[in-house]
């Protein structure tokens, strides 16, 4: 076999990679060209895809600043010829859209449900992470098991339940049914578990109460997770659509997404006035952009593990 003989190897080396000065230059040139081609291809693809990804946002913003006439031109403009900021002013004053009512409702529901949810999640996660009780593991497994079931399955009965409770068209119905998230408990429990048990034992030796330990040690250490949960929960209120539409679609309790989808934004003839609609969409999207820009890492942390979108 070739491996056993020096000459054979040398021979093969010569034949497999024939090298002379001209060949060498050609190879070097060829590899440079293929490298440039590869890079060009990669960048072209990425930039094209980036353009596609970003275009709807761009379209939203330019459209929201156009006059209705300009928007409807058969040859579209890629930049507004004159800025019509009234479109944005209209968002806040539109009688049909009722931005401030929607905004107040959404923020109220968001804040209250976030606060209550955090309290419940922290106590549950603490019990699972630090306390010993009978049936702990079975209970936790059962909780995780419920995560597999699509939420729509619960909605049918929950609709009946809240109806029986007389909660229809109230803030309660928007807040209470979704206070407990098994995923948040899981997330925070994992985070609590990483805190060494010795800290808890040391606190017990010093006579620190559970609550004080929780407040002084665990919560500060688990702060990133708590921030993630807060952001996800607030975004949940901002983006929720299906449940509110079912149980609280009256004008007094309507949330922002329902209001946006439901508002007509039509002109005198009943045709959709897209610039006004796009301005409203932009206003509703703005808080999410701010979250994206400033708090992205907290969302990524939570969501990449869950596969759940805010």
């Amino acid at each position, binding site marked *: 076999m070739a491996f056993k003989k020096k000459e054979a190897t040398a021979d093969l080396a010569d034949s497999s990679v024939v090298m002379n000065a001209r060949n060498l230059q050609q190879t070097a040139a060829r590899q440079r060209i293929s490298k440039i081609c590869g*890079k060009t291809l990669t*960048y072209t*693809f*990425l930039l094209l*895809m980036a353009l*596609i*990804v970003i275009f*709807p946002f761009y*379209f*939203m913003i330019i459209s929201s600043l156009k006059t209705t006439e300009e928007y*409807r*031109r*058969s*040859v*579209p403009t890629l930049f507004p010829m004159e800025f019509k900021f009234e479109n944005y002013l209209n968002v806040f004053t539109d009688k049909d859209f009722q931005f401030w009512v929607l905004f107040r409702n959404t923020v109220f529901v968001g804040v209250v449900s976030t606060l209550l949810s955090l309290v*419940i999640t922290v*106590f*549950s996660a603490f*019990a699972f992470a630090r*306390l*010993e*009780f009978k049936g702990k593991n079975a209970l936790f497994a059962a*909780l995780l098991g*419920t995560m597999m079931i*699509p939420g*729509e*399955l*619960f*909605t*049918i*009965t929950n*609709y*009946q*339940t809240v*109806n029986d409770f007389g909660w229809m068209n109230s803030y309660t119905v928007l807040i209470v049914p*979704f*206070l*407990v998230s*098994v995923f948040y*408990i899981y997330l925070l429990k994992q985070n609590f578990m990483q805190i060494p048990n010795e800290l808890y034992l040391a606190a017990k030796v010093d006579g620190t109460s*559970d609550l004080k330990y929780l407040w002084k040690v665990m919560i500060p250490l688990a702060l990133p997770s708590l921030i993630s949960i807060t952001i996800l929960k607030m975004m949940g209120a901002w*983006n929720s659509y*299906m449940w509110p539409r*079912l149980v609280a679609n009256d004008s007094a309790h309507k949330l922002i*997404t329902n209001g*946006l*989808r439901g508002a007509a934004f039509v002109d005198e003839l009943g045709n959709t006035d*897209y610039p006004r609609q*796009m301005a409203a*969409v932009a206003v*509703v*999207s703005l808080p*999410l*952009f701010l*979250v*994206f820009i400033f708090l992205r890492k907290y*969302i990524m942390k939570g*969501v990449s593990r869950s*596969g759940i*979108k805010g």
Partner: protein
Amino acid sequence: MVDTRKQWKAWLYLSPAIVLLLVFTVWPIFNTIRLSLMEGYNSTMAANPYVDHEFAIGLGNFKRVLEYPNFLTCLKNTVLLCVITVPISTLLALLIAVGLHSIKFLQKPLQTIFFMPYVTNSIAIGMVFAAMFNMVIGGSTRPDSVGIINNLLEALGIDYVNWTNAGSKYWANLVVMVVYIVWNALPFKILVLLGGLQGINKQYYEAARVDGTKKSRVLWKITVPLLSPMLAYVIITGFIGGFKEYSSIVGIFGDTMGPAGNPYRMDTMVGFIYRAIGKQEGTASAAALILFGIIFVVTMINLAVSKKKTHY
């Protein structure tokens, strides 16, 4: 030994969560199964104090759901959207993630752009997509404005298409939905796959380079197998999300879930369930259980396949 005082404390801490879960999660599971087995159950009839209504126990609800033409439309739409969008978005996300991973210049800004659709309101941005595809009908034979997407098509020498307006074709509606759902699904997949790529030892690539392996071969023979756990993850979550598709369709078509004059043409299984809530609980429960069954089976198949493919 477990200290009894502590036991008591643990249950106290857990009590709010447990009470709420019992009412809004555990009870619905049993109740959904119960309702699905009560033939033709509906709450209005059940609540009527003057009629003592007995509902027969049986599988009639399931049978009725499966024979219901509307449900079959929903099933068809859901499956079609799933089967089309999951492979497209996974492949695109893979190529984008690999591309992003291979460059230095502009990597950060491009990454930011690709993650942007991540934190959006799917109803709100759906309305933007709807506007992009929508035609403004005027008096003449040709619409006043054919919409920006049609403008782009015409610039490429392609005739404009009625995407979402009255009289639009089914396939055109489907294309709009696919575009929007893929656009929406990309960032999460890119994020997960990019994370996976960054976890792959660089030396595998150096070893492949030493051997003069072609780029495409590196992608299919090294990157994809090494990335297979992440790919399995995004595919499974993609299918689960796909079977629950609803709000993206409302975003594009509004509550009618179809173009004007053709309501509910793009309805999905979740949409079907939602419309039956408060009216036909028996059917809704049966549909919800069928949906759960489908998701469960598809997930199991995915897991079984990925276990075989990702094992190393």
